[in-house]
């Protein structure tokens, strides 16, 4: 299996009005093709920062980040935009669909910014992606705000799939969904990973982790293995501070 993500000793320091914030303190991780990785951590742990760096929305302060072997830590804004367009599919907690556009238009949106997809192919690819996430054809021309939450998130996943990216990056994709719908969306991610897609999912919900191949934990800007996390939790419980 080839490596899709190869992250070594990643640091990210923000400059804020309050001073410097050290959000990532040496995160390392590797994700193979077709793997479904869950990144878990409480709020404030640095997982959103990690997600932004992995999604090429942000650059690390130090450390190396290779996406399909390409070092993206030092690329320019425009090059990063190109990477996002061709190699990454985003799924957000709040779906982020354009309410004024139809389902089809929403799914085709990444192709508008893609230099590799000819215009004639757009519709075909969008339909294929929508079929893959089980959106019935009669909804294709509906405006996205006419859909249910679960449908919206599936449309968003279709949008993430449409460019056939190397990596699907989902940030709390079930955070706004009820548990039955969450289950369906997570099963969909599982199915995509089984079909060979690489999925990295970020959450603070331990139940989500059950669908993943592997889970890593983030605390205070550092990545922990399951054993380290358990030790940490045990220590907290011993002091009566653990509340999850």
């Amino acid at each position, binding site marked *: 299996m080839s490596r899709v993500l190869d992250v070594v000793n990643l640091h990210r320091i923000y400059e804020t009005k309050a001073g410097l914030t050290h959000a990532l303190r040496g995160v390392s991780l590797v994700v193979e093709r077709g793997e479904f990785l869950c990144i878990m951590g409480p709020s404030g742990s640095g997982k959103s920062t990690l997600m*932004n760096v992995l*999604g090429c*929305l*942000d650059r690390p302060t130090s450390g190396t980040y290779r996406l399909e072997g390409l070092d993206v830590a030092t690329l320019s*804004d*425009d090059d990063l*935009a*190109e990477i*996002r*367009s*061709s190699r990454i599919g*985003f799924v*957000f907690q709040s779906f*982020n669909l*354009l309410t*004024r*556009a139809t389902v089809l238009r929403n799914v085709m*949106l*990444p192709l*508008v*910014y*893609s230099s590799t997809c000819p*215009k004639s192919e757009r519709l075909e690819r969008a339909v294929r992606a929508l079929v893959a996430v089980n959106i019935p054809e009669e909804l294709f021309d509906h405006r996205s705000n006419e859909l249910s939450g679960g449908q919206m998130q599936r449309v968003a996943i279709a*949008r993430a799939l449409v*460019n056939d990216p190397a990596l699907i990056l989902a940030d709390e994709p079930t955070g706004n969904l009820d548990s039955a719908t969450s289950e369906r969306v997570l099963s969909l991610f599982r199915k995509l990973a089984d079909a060979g897609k690489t999925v990295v999912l970020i959450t603070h919900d331990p139940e989500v982790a059950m669908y993943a191949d592997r889970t890593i934990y983030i605390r205070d800007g550092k990545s922990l293995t399951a054993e380290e996390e358990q030790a940490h939790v045990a220590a907290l419980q011993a002091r009566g501070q653990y509340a999850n």
Partner: protein
Amino acid sequence: MRISDLLYETWSALMANKGRTMLTILGIVIGISAVIAMTSLIDGVKNSLVSQLGLDQSRVVYIYYWNGSETRAEDLTTIQEGVEGYEFITGMQSGYGKASTDVKQADTSVMGVSKGFFSALGMKLTDGRMLTDAELNSDAMVVVIDSSLARSLFGEDVSPVGEQIEIGNDRYSVIGVVEASSMFASQGTVYMPWQTCSIRVTGSTSFDQIVGYALEGEDMESLVQRTESFIRQRFNIAEEDDTEGQGYVYVQSIASIQEELNTTLLSFQMLMTAVAGISLLVGGIGIMNMMLTNVTERIREIGLRKALGAHRSDITAQFLMESVAICLVGGIIGFLLGVAAAWVLAAASAGALGGMVSVNGESAAVTPYVSGTTVLTAIGICAGIGVLFGFWPAYRAAKLDPVESLRHQ
């Protein structure tokens, strides 16, 4: 990002908020229509002045001089031979009298004119024929009258050609009618051969006015200067004489009069356009306001687009296109409204002034004139305003950090 995608995004964004888009367009419509109405009205005024005053005769030079003695036909020949650049030089004298038919009478000015006069001033015949060269060189009792006099002596519907009029105790045959020219001759003028005028009306053998007609392509400014210095030298009139009352030389080309008129009207035009331009500025600020609101409202959308691979330039283009589209649509509507408003204003002012400013006996309606320059300027202004007032909001949008934009609530 392809142009077709850009246009679709622009359309869909503007349609998503129709009310706001319409109001912003309205601001531009008002501004552009005010500018266009002003410009085309003033251009119309200029055109009608030029044609009514005979200023389109740009090859004409008026020559006035006096050195204490009479100006005779030989003197005209002397000037024509002494100054290169004239096709011909013609002279005239004027007097006053009462012209009458059997039933009507009118005060009139009488002009004795010589060969070339009608063509030099570009007089337009409306009835009958002009005086022939043979008649102009004789003391024939034939006259051409202007349309204003024709109307007061013979009424609207009767052709005066072939009729007789009486001036002093002499009877003349009317052989033609010309359009009244207000620059050179007053309303109600009788034109007759110079000799006839000299013998029958004024009793003088001197020319009062000299009109030169330049060769085609002649540099008018230099011709005017050469004419003046020739006359000063030949007739012995020093420049000091002009102020001391010993004599004078005054040479002026119609081209220079037209230039003066243009200069005067230009400053007027600029003033009016500036006033109208203020409303355009307000419209532009309206656009900027709308676009800034737009950017703020769509921060998440901008973040999303960036996450999906939009470059900075894509975002800039998208927002800039929205403001340019508003300006162009507003510009087109404003242009049409402006032209319509100019016509309505022209018609209203002609109606209100009625006969007061009648020039050829008809009310002097101004025809608004929309020149190619005006059209191009309007398009340029529209696109310019779109870019100018749209750039800052677009730049702000493009500069937004994708991470923070996505987090924006």
